[in-house]
């Protein structure tokens, strides 16, 4: 399933609008390619966790696409995959170090899932299917759009589960944006008793299923 779509992403037409449409909608990494679901399902218990992982993934994706595009003329085909993995692994390590330095509390919660960004197939998939065959700028733009598409699904699912599970939105945003963000928390349903299922793993699968269904519905209506 995912390979067919990855091929699709390598089409010669690479106008900015096409790249954006692919990443955000028609070839969305989470909703269509269904890649990187392990961190996606595990981390989306709140908006702040989802946003933290979304930003980390976005940075790695743009960085790896850019680097892969830069070296695409020099790497022999046989050494291609190890080289891509090296690039992705070093970006992931750097991002995880930066996160410890600048958003330490958030890192404590999502550490494991930031570290396994290196195994997120979206990133290797984009390196192989797009960046290794395209010039620098389109590759960076593709990384940005794929990252935004993936991140949007993370944040949507995080918001859905946080709201349904705890009746609150944007709790603990100070972990990512500093003390001034402590006031962003919105109590949507006061005296909410909590809905356990939404924050537990089944809530992730159900929420993800609903998001995919909603996308299919919108596509079919056109």
């Amino acid at each position, binding site marked *: 399933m995912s390979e067919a779509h990855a091929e699709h992403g390598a089409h010669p037409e690479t106008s900015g609008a096409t790249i954006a449409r692919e990443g955000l909608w028609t070839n969305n990494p989470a909703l269509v390619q269904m890649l990187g679901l392990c961190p996606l399902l595990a981390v989306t*218990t*709140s908006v702040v*966790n989802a946003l933290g992982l979304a930003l980390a993934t976005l940075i790695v994706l743009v960085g790896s696409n850019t680097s892969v595009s830069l070296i695409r003329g020099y*790497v*022999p085909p*046989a*050494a291609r995959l*190890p*080289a891509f993995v*090296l*690039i992705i*692994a*070093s970006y992931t*390590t*750097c991002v995880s*170090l*930066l996160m*410890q*330095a*600048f958003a*330490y*509390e958030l890192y*404590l*919660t999502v550490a494991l899932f930031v570290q396994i960004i290196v195994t997120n197939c979206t990133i290797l998939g984009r390196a192989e299917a797009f960046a290794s065959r395209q010039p620098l700028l389109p590759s960076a733009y593709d990384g940005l759009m794929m990252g935004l598409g993936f991140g949007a699904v993370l944040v949507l699912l995080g918001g859905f589960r*946080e709201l349904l*599970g*705890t009746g609150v939105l944007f709790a603990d945003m100070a972990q990512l944006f500093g003390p001034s963000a402590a006031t962003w928390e919105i109590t949507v349903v006061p005296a909410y*008793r*909590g809905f*356990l299922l939404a*924050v*537990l793993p089944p809530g992730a699968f159900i929420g993800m299923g609903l998001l995919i269904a909603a996308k299919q519905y919108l596509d079919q209506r056109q």
Partner: protein
Amino acid sequence: MSTFRTVMHNAMGLALFAAVTVGVIALTATFTGERIAAQEERVRQAALYEILEATTDADIDLEQRVSLNAAALGHREPREAVIARRNDRAVALIVPVRIPDGYGGPIEVLLGIEPDGRVAGVRVVAHRETPGLGNDIERRRSDWIDAFRGRGLDDPPLPQWTVRADGGEFDGFTGATITPRAIARGIGRALVWFEDDGRALLEEAR
């Protein structure tokens, strides 16, 4: 022979490449190292102050560290305990406790114990409990953890160091029993360790 040359060529290229990426990581590590250490220290220090209800450096002295080798506290390797002093008297021993049986894995707490074996204060420093349910063990979300303050092994006796659902002394959370149970029992066990071994650490330091 040409296969060999190709392989060598690729291997050399990859080695060079690995060297470059390692260099980038080393650079980032150097750049962030100091800040990460400061962050770790800040979180730790904040927890220590909260445990002792202290606000300033003038109030309390946390300089003295002793090495801690206690399998009973869940540690597989040596850790560090802090001897807290007020007016030059040791007022509490603060030990890290690793509670293995949380719902989402081990829960790491810092526990302050006064010389008479009572709890000075507790803070959860790392956990992976369910958000919205188990994470009420964090002080910034709920004051549940303060229920342990001032309690000792005579109040209540060890079998009641668990949640009410198990006939214990401490409140659980609606929908989550495993997390508060693990913490109550973990603290009870740590107090037993204090009676056995911990008090000696504090008395040596006096």
